[in-house]
């Protein structure tokens, strides 16, 4: 009954399982098909906006980080100008908002150039992170324009950014 072998690769590769596994596999496949055909569940809708919630949380945290950074950083020297990230084209923002933000960015740029290097880098980095998060929300909105939650997050994130930019602009005047 048992074969005699001289090589490992002579061992049989096919060993059927002790029971037919197809009925269980078939049942799982049918359940999978039924789930795919069903209308989107609450869980799936939640899965779609969960990343956006994460982004919004990140925006909030970075904005807080900007404010904290400004509160504790020392004032002093006047190093060379650094570029802040102004983000991509904020196509979804109203024109009035864009103009206000552009004007604010010029003032922030001037403020940053008067900050000590350590503080300037920290604030510029936080603002850039904030802008990246907004860009990601904007990109998500581009893929799902009708998503009310994403729209809300986008608006509140832009407001957070404006608050942070204003705080940076006003930081020197508060302390002097």
């Amino acid at each position, binding site marked *: 009954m048992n074969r005699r072998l001289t090589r490992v690769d002579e061992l049989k*590769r096919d060993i059927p399982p002790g029971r037919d596994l197809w009925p269980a596999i078939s049942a799982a496949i049918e359940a999978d098909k039924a789930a795919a055909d069903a209308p989107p569940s609450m869980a799936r809708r939640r899965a779609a906006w969960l990343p956006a919630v994460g982004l919004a949380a990140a925006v909030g945290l970075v904005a807080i980080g900007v404010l904290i950074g400004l509160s504790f950083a020392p004032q002093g020297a006047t190093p060379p100008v650094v570029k802040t990230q102004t983000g991509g084209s904020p196509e979804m923002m109203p024109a009035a908002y864009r103009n206000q933000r552009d004007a604010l960015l010029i003032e922030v740029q001037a403020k940053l150039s008067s900050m000590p290097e350590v503080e300037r880098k920290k604030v510029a980095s936080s603002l850039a992170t904030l802008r990246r998060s907004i860009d990601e929300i904007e990109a998500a909105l581009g893929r799902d324009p009708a998503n009310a939650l994403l729209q809300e997050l986008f608006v509140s994130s832009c407001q957070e950014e404006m608050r942070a930019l204003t705080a940076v602009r006003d930081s020197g005047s508060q302390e002097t």
Partner: protein
Amino acid sequence: MKTDTVVEFDVALVERARRGDAKAFERLYRDHVGRVNGLCLRMTRNPDLAADCVQDAFIKAWKALPKFEARASFSTWLHRIAVNTVLEKRRGPSNAEIAVEDPTVHEEPTMTFDTPVEEEELEAAIESLPQGARDALVLCGVYGYEHSEAASMLGIAVGTCKAQLHRARGLLRDRLERGVR
């Protein structure tokens, strides 16, 4: 080795299964289940656990079919899923094994024995090998995978896979010498 005709037949079945044809997938299951079970059984050493792995692997394969690239071998892809399933089931502190071997060793092309051994004894000797060595021997020695393929399936470095195979050969020879002759 599968012939071209068989591979083409697989491709046609896979294409039908990708479009949601469960009958085509059942045919793929019937054609491949023996080999997948053999692989899982040799890796787990437990028929019930092996059957669970096989079942999970086919369910995962069904779900992942849209991601399967037609130019790849369905059999290899399925084995990769099966190996991954076994590794997932195995994960846990009690099952951890660390491979510390010289990866620069040169291995022989095939594992041969001077005196023929009973198939059953050889299976028992393989079963007694440490996990890492057994995995490498099963994939490379029994199922004929290249080191790079086996290493990728197992999530280890190619050098580690070579070292494990070398270790497996040594241990297997010792155990067969002691047990068989």
